[in-house]
């Protein structure tokens, strides 16, 4: 036991020491990324951990970036939380205390963020956390929480993309009743809390059902929803469930009209012959954008080159592409602020500026991101209509 | 009259394992019950120990009807049963095994304060350890006390089973085939031990199919066949009984 312990300790200290030696000399800026790359809820975390490395790789290959007269390279430390509180805490401690990281991307999982929040808050002002998790909205922009910035559009509010989506839905389809079907976890519950009022405010009747994570057979709950006779089914919130919901809803002819704010065009395209209407929020419709926007084309090529696999248009690796932009955005902010370690200065510059990447990214007064996006509207047979929205 | 069995019967569905058996055991005697395999010996013993509830009949222990009582209650009254093939922890020592069986003795300890023995068994349970050593000595296991059970011979293992039972200070000890699978000197040793146990004041009820071994020192014998008592009395008379010869010895010669 004793000997075992000692040897283990030696190992631990070694592990603790190596990174510090390796990176203390060269002028590098460390970026951390804390996401659930594995585990049942890893779909978004996995995607985002795809985008950042591409950008980091590009910047370093281009010889780094200049701030003042020093050139810096980026060093990415991506860690996997598996969505487990224990892991998340240890991993974030590693990043902040052991590797002295000042800029952390992630997390996308709400429960992971809440887990690490109490600890992260102790480092307020000492580092920046740029996460997409829906639940970050509750904490961001409050005194004492300056460390966190939410790198995703918020659904509600005048600039909220959710409201814009709903308005589009009303304009095009005039629904009376909308049925919501979300996963019974943090993300899903919050979606319900956000959208019920939005629909109510516009005089639309709603019904909300939650399903156990891991559900594959939705026909019971769909049958129940069919009893409510909704004009549109509003399912959430990741493709893992959406493929099954859309298919089963059509096959069992429970509902053939869908409205989505989380997820991709994939499920719609897959069932294009069965559905009647499929309105989905996507940050960007990549097929179209690739033709028009060089930056998008560049990203898609970079993705293919980096991972040596095809670019999944239907999945539209939304988080990955946005995280790619976020890296460049952060670098721009550093250059503008003329510092790579003055967290507060970089933060204020970041929040003040507008970054023109694949997206036009700016921040509202809650340090929550506002960016343009596309609404993809699939009709029976796959006819596609793309609407670009500037909040 | 220590134990009195009246019309004890046990059915498993259609099969009658023990049918309408009656007998009595006097204090201090050794009673041998024998019969071929499947004659209901083991079932009978389990009924006495309370491991099985009887279908009919009664069992009086010192005049109290204990039929259908829970086994631990019967044990606490002083009726202890050994098992034919003792299961043991390979890594535990012989002494530790006997201590595992020390619960009844523990509850009977005169000077015992549970808290004290919880906090420091070493001090709180000296009497218990003495008892354990005594039980081991009775069973001729004193030299193996510190050995792990894995190193015991089969004979010693069975003996350890007896020692664990003796740890409960039984008035009546029910032995389930103590001699089965033993070599001749092991059987000899077993006989000596059993004699010592009797001298020590324990009443013994032994079931076995090794007739010769039983006959030597049992005071009375009962022969079973298909759950029925076919003969009873002094061992040699029982062995002479034509029914027994036919039913039992006849077979065992060929077997």
């Amino acid at each position, binding site marked *: 036991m004793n*000997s075992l312990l000692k040897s283990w*300790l030696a190992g631990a200290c070694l592990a603790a020491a190596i990174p510090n030696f390796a990176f203390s000399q060269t002028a590098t800026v460390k970026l951390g990324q804390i996401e659930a790359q594995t585990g049942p809820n890893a779909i978004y975390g996995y995607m985002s951990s795809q985008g950042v490395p591409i950008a980091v790789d590009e910047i370093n290959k281009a010889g780094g970036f200049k701030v003042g007269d020093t050139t810096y390279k980026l060093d990415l430390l991506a860690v996997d939380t598996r969505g487990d509180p224990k892991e998340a805490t240890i991993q974030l*401690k590693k990043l902040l205390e052991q590797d002295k990281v000042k800029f952390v991307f992630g997390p996308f999982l709400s429960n992971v963020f809440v887990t690490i929040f109490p600890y992260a808050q102790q480092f307020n002002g000492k580092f920046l956390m740029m996460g997409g998790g829906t639940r970050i909205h509750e904490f961001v922009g409050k005194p004492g929480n300056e460390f966190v910035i939410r790198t995703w559009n918020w659904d509600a509010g005048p600039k909220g993309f959710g409201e814009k989506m709903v308005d589009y839905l009303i304009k095009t389809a005039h629904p009376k009743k909308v049925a919501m079907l979300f996963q019974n976890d943090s993300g899903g519950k919050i979606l319900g809390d956000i959208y019920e009022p939005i629909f109510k405010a516009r005089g639309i009747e709603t019904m909300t059902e939650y399903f156990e994570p891991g559900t594959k057979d939705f026909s019971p709950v769909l049958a129940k929803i069919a009893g409510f006779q909704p004009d549109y089914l509003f399912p959430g919130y990741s493709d893992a469930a959406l493929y099954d919901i859309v298919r089963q809803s059509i096959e069992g002819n429970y509902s053939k009209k869908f409205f989505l704010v989380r997820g991709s065009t994939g499920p719609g395209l897959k069932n294009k012959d069965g559905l009647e209407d499929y309105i989905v929020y996507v940050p960007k419709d990549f097929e179209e954008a690739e033709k028009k926007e060089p930056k998008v084309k560049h990203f898609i090529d970079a993705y293919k080159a980096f991972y040596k696999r095809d670019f999944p248009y239907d999945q539209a690796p939304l988080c990955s592409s946005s995280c790619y932009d976020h890296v460049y955005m952060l670098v721009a902010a550093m250059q503008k602020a003329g510092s790579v370690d003055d967290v507060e200065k970089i933060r204020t510059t970041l929040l003040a500026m507008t970054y023109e990447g694949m997206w036009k990214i700016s921040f509202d007064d809650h340090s929550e991101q506002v960016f343009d996006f596309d609404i993809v509207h699939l009709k029976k047979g796959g006819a596609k209509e793309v609407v670009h929205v500037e909040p | 009259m220590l134990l009195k069995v009246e019309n004890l019967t046990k059915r498993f569905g259609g099969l009658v394992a023990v049918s309408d058996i009656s007998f009595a055991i006097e204090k201090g005697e050794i009673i041998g019950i024998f019969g071929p395999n499947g004659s209901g010996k083991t079932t009978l013993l389990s009924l006495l120990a309370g491991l099985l509830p009887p279908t009919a009949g009664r069992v009086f222990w010192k005049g109290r009807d204990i039929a259908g009582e829970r086994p631990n209650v019967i044990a606490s009254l002083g009726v202890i049963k050994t098992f034919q093939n003792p299961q043991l922890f390979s890594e535990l020592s012989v002494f530790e095994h006997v201590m595992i069986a020390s619960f009844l003795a523990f509850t009977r300890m005169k000077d015992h304060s549970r808290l004290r023995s919880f906090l420091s068994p070493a001090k709180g349970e000296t009497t218990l350890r003495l008892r354990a050593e005594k039980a081991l000595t009775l069973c001729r296991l004193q030299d193996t006390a510190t050995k792990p059970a894995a190193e015991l011979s089969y004979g010693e293992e069975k003996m350890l089973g007896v020692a664990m039972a003796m740890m409960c200070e039984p008035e009546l000890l029910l032995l389930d085939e103590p001699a089965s699978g033993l070599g001749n000197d092991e059987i000899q040793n077993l006989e000596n031990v059993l004699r010592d146990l009797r001298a020590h004041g324990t009443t013994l009820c032994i079931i076995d199919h090794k007739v010769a071994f039983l006959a030597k020192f049992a005071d009375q014998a009962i022969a079973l066949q298909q759950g029925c008592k076919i003969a009873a009395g002094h061992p040699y008379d029982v062995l002479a009984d034509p029914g027994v010869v036919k039913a039992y010895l006849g077979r065992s010669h060929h077997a």
Partner: protein
Amino acid sequence: MKTLLCLVPLYLLPLLVKSDVVLTILIFTFVLSILAVGFNIVFGGAGQLTMFHAAAFGIGSYVTFLSMLRFGISFWLGFLVAVAIVILISIVIGWICFKFRLKEFYFAVVTLAFAELCRLVALNWTSVTNGTLGMLVLEKPTVWLPGSGVVKIEQTGPWYFLTLVSLTGVLIFAVLLMRSWIGRNFSAIRLNEDLAQTLGIDTFRYKLLAFTISNVIAALAGALYGFYTGYIEPAYLAVTQSLDAIAMVLLGGVSTILGPVVGALVLTSLPHLIELPAEMRVAVYGMILILVILLMPRGIVGLFAGLLKGRVNAA
């Protein structure tokens, strides 16, 4: 008892190791060790394969926090409430399982079913547990120290000692328990229930006792875990939590005193000692588990038993 001296170096460790990360890993190790020690009492001691300890773990954290919130009492009083409730639940479930003589696989599955039910309650009783959103725990436990009076446990250092002391306490209790007549009766039951009964042991009562004790210990682990991470969610009651604890015990050595601790240490620290891509790490964890089970049937401690003088058995 001597074996527990192995814990002494842990008390001195913070003097040598300043790395907050290492200490954090150890804090989790200690807390999970407590859970594993509890499981080892009912499984390694009385031979009952329960799957309920994760539920007890979760209930411990939920009830402690909720009663702190509702009644404005201290952490330890809140924990007492949790203990009371866990004892109640254990007795009910244990009574059902043991009265109906559920053994081995069946016992495991029924306790698992009950654990799942508890999880689903925590998940969907939103008004009380805040459901899937979980609860942020900003309160901290307090302890009274001679000299400095009542202090809040907030930083890593104090947490390290609080959890280590709790573990030591649980271990001492476990050693005493397993050496006492209770522990001997557990062993008798594990050896052979019929035999145990014919030795005068009320197996029903003692199985119930083992089950309850282990759940109470699990509840302690849960309370510490919830307050250390500062967040309580229904996932605490998940099957995986139970399986992890079982893995720790078998890895370290079932029916040994230090086994659970060693197992917890290995399983908690391993992912952080080997730097690998996420997917590979999971695979390596699996392989190591398999190898240990197949190659060291008596666990790491069992293997080192020769080196560790005075092999300690849970009997």
